[in-house]
């Protein structure tokens, strides 16, 4: 299989409301990514766009609209889509654009402008669920997370206070992220006392809605070695989608994440992810999700993630840091862009370029993961140096 490397990354601030249009955000991130590896648009063979539902930007076929901002003018340009899992999936897609042998340099741009959706970006989700049997109930996005969190807590006897520590950790990590939207020093009590939105989900368990863009540059081995002495290799990719019928499966465990992770680990030759993975960026749109996903990523036994958290092993200075970036809870959740931000974070961490966020001990292998749809999608990428 052809070797593929990530060679550049860029991103905009994550913001509740950006003045920039989606195109402008895309250009800002993409331009920065190209600058970072000293390539120009001429060097780019193809472009992959990652952006979640059109209902956020409120533009039908929004990838078409965004294409010039993403640098796709007169280039092969494709948009991959797996709901909230899109951000990591497009990295996988860029990998196969290059690994196929068709292209040498692929620019990935992930953009989201959720503030365009009124009365509130959450309203977009009511257009997601099954139109016949689910949406007519007035189904809210938060119900799903509340159900899953409740099921997860009940299955393993985990408490809300324990889960709250994810928010505390990630918002604190985000204090060191220059693009973060909601960095904060908060306590478990702050989380517990925050407004109940859909019990057991409280306001500080939830990531914000965001506008922002992130871009990555992928290159073939030959090009990567020519333009950088610090390529970060794509070692494994995986993606998997479970049935849409939510009542047909048990929410306490994300089997789809496990399947996607196994695909990626198999490809990367990873036998024991707990020992071999140095840093992880599991998707954390809600506090419990980081734990839930870490279990799916096989970074611990089922129900055990919370122990690693409570012991401090997942802190930036811990044995295996989770979400050293600050994650969706701290940096912001510009859906597709957030997944790609996680890939960018692993890229920066493995190159030792994460600044104040740098995880000590020269990490060599990292995994980024995103999740999406109706509690259905796992997308995973393993990077290494």
């Amino acid at each position, binding site marked *: 299989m052809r070797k593929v490397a990530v060679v550049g990354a860029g991103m905009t601030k994550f913001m509740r409301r950006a003045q920039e249009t989606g195109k*402008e955000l895309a250009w800002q991130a993409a331009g920065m990514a190209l600058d970072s590896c000293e390539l120009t648009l001429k060097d780019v063979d193809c472009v992959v766009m990652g952006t979640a539902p059109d209902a956020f930007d409120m533009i039908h076929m929004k990838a078409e609209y965004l294409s010039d901002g993403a640098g796709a003018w007169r280039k092969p340009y494709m948009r991959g889509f797996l709901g909230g899992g899109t951000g990591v999936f497009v990295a996988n897609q860029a990998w196969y654009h290059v690994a196929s042998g068709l292209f040498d340099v692929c620019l990935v741009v992930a953009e989201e402008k959720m503030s365009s*959706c009124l*009365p509130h970006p959450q309203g977009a989700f009511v257009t997601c669920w099954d139109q016949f049997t689910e949406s007519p109930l007035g189904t809210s996005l938060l119900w799903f997370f509340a159900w899953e969190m409740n099921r997860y807590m009940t299955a393993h006897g985990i408490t809300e206070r324990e889960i709250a520590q994810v928010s505390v950790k990630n918002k604190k990590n985000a204090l060191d992220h220059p693009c973060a939207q909601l960095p904060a020093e908060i306590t478990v009590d702050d989380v517990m006392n925050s407004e109940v939105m859909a019990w057991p989900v409280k306001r500080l368990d939830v990531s914000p809605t965001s506008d922002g863009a992130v871009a990555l540059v992928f290159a073939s081995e030959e090009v990567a070695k020519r333009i950088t002495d610090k390529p970060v290799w794509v070692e494994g990719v995986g993606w998997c989608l479970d049935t849409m019928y939510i009542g047909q499966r048990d929410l306490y465990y994300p089997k789809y994440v496990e399947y996607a992770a196994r695909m990626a680990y198999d490809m990367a030759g990873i036998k024991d992810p707990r020992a071999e993975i140095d840093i992880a960026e599991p998707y954390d749109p809600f506090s419990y999700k980081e734990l839930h996903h870490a279990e799916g990523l096989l970074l611990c036994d089922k129900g055990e993630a919370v122990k690693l958290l409570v012991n401090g092993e997942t802190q930036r200075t811990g044995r295996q840091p989770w979400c050293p970036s600050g994650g969706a809870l701290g940096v912001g959740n510009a859906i597709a862009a957030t997944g790609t931000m996680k890939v960018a974070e692993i890229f920066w961490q493995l190159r030792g370029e994460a600044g104040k966020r740098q995880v000590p001990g020269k990490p060599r292998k990292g995994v980024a993961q995103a999740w999406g749809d109706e509690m259905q999608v796992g997308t995973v990428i393993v990077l290494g140096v």
Partner: protein
Amino acid sequence: MPLDKVTQVAQTKPWHGDIPVYGQYTFGIAGERFFRDIKDKGRIMGAECAACNLVYVPPRIYCERCFGELAKWLEIPNRGVVHTFTVAHADLDGNRLKEPVVVALVKFDGVYGGLVHRLGEVEPDKVAIGMAVEMMLKPKAERTGSILDINYFRPIQA
């Protein structure tokens, strides 16, 4: 044994729905400035890419061809030519228009791009590609900062 298919029209029943959200869009960095200029000063501005030797209308903050940043803005004369046009006989709801609307892409001299708008003060069958037209703005008091601040383009009388 497989289940029976739907075999009678009476058994069919659609389920109705819509998209119960709407869009609110900022104009962006370039759009904000472009429409403020139209609203307040009644002029069209373009943005130049020196590397590609292009002047963008509508102006942008980036060049779509080379990705360079466009910092230099310049005023564009409000006279242009019809690059292409159509005579629309149906409205957005699909209804027949009583008075057809001539929609055109108006290009300006030396400019990459142009503006899509309607033509006014002209019979549809008199319109031709290459026809010289000028921009007709709404009175300043009625301008809100929108593409609709331009009322229409009309032929320049020779």
